[in-house]
């Protein structure tokens, strides 16, 4: 699979973070990018669009990232989720790992970190 074919969902309540992350993904040659502004919207979009990869913030209104991760994995274990948050506490990390998270990115996100993760993801999928 090549990056252009990947369907990536960005979920963050910050419009600025979504914009920056989208720019970084486009730089990394990802073209099929969806956006959600909270955990509930992300869960709904996962059910509707079945993304290959989800970038999920943790602290969000309506439904936080851990709860959204739980529901996404209950619905479809094969959806890969990257937690992208400034709050990488031990509690959150343990919960996310237990729920089968693909990776954790510490904010502030950089283009390099996003690009490296995407390359690794593509390589792992063959």
């Amino acid at each position, binding site marked *: 699979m090549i990056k252009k074919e990947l369907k990536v969902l960005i979920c963050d*309540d*910050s*419009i*600025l*973070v979504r*914009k*920056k992350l989208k720019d970084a993904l486009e730089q990394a040659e990802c073209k099929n990018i969806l956006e959600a502004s909270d955990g509930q919207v992300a869960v709904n979009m996962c059910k509707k669009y079945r993304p290959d990869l989800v970038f999920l913030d943790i*602290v*969000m*209104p309506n439904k936080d990232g851990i709860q959204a991760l739980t529901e996404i994995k209950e619905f479809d274990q094969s959806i890969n989720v990257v937690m992208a*948050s*400034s*709050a*990488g*506490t*031990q*509690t959150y990390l343990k919960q996310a790992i237990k729920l089968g998270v693909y990776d954790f990115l510490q*904010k*502030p996100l950089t283009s390099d970190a996003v690009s490296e993760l995407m390359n690794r993801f593509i390589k792992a999928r063959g």
Partner: protein
Amino acid sequence: MFSQYFGHYLLNKRLINLLQLQDVLELQKSNHVKLGILAINEGFMSVEQVDETHEKQMLMDKKFGEIAIELGFLTEDQLEILLTAQNKSHLLIGQTLIDRGYLTLKQYSEALINYKKDHSLSDEQFQNISNGDIETLINRTLTVGHPYLRDVYIDYLSLFAKNMIRFIDDQTHIEAQPFTEPEIIPWLVTQKISGDMHLWTGIATDESLFLHIASKFAQEEFDQPDEYAQASISEFLNLHNGLFLVNMSNQNIELDMEPQKVHQDAQLIPDTLGYIVSVHSSSRTFYLILSNQLQYV
């Protein structure tokens, strides 16, 4: 970092004016610290001894250190320490103040002594501060008596000072004051932290500085407080608080935080255990609110 704090101390004491402070902070970046200043900072030589050494130096082709040793003002070991410290940037402010004629050597020496005295600093604490230990400085300025809150506030404010430098402005300087007067805030971004303890945090500012901070953090120019500008300030607070949660988590204190909220024309209700922290950035000031029972209307 010491330069910002000592420079603002001089400003508050009216020993220099704002333009001189800005000039000094700019110039010191490229200045080179002289051994006489270092010797006074370290307490190895008096002002009179440095002046005498300078006078001799004008009459002979020898270096300051050699003459000071010949005159018995310095030992070899002390000179070694001074030479090692000469490259430390935090002492440049003294050199720059004197080179520009804003302070005499004597005024500078007295200001340093008074700075230590006003902040109740031991020589060791002063050395730590001048070497960039922000925790020690903030510890000396906080007056909250509750020991647990005090430690948390020190951690929080020290990290905030570092994050301001990292993400917004490397010329940042912060001052904590007890939070006792009601304030009307044009723009207030808040975030509540809960878990093993409760903290209310907020960034309070006028519109002009709101846009300035938003632009700096997002690395793009905002001329209106639109949703992107609001998101930028919110994300800066969220990022800082998230990093604070990670630090606390590493100390086995597990905390959580709520999504940020943006308020316009909010009035803060004073909290005797809280602080309103002046954050000086690019010659302007905004406020960081830190409280365990913040309320606003």
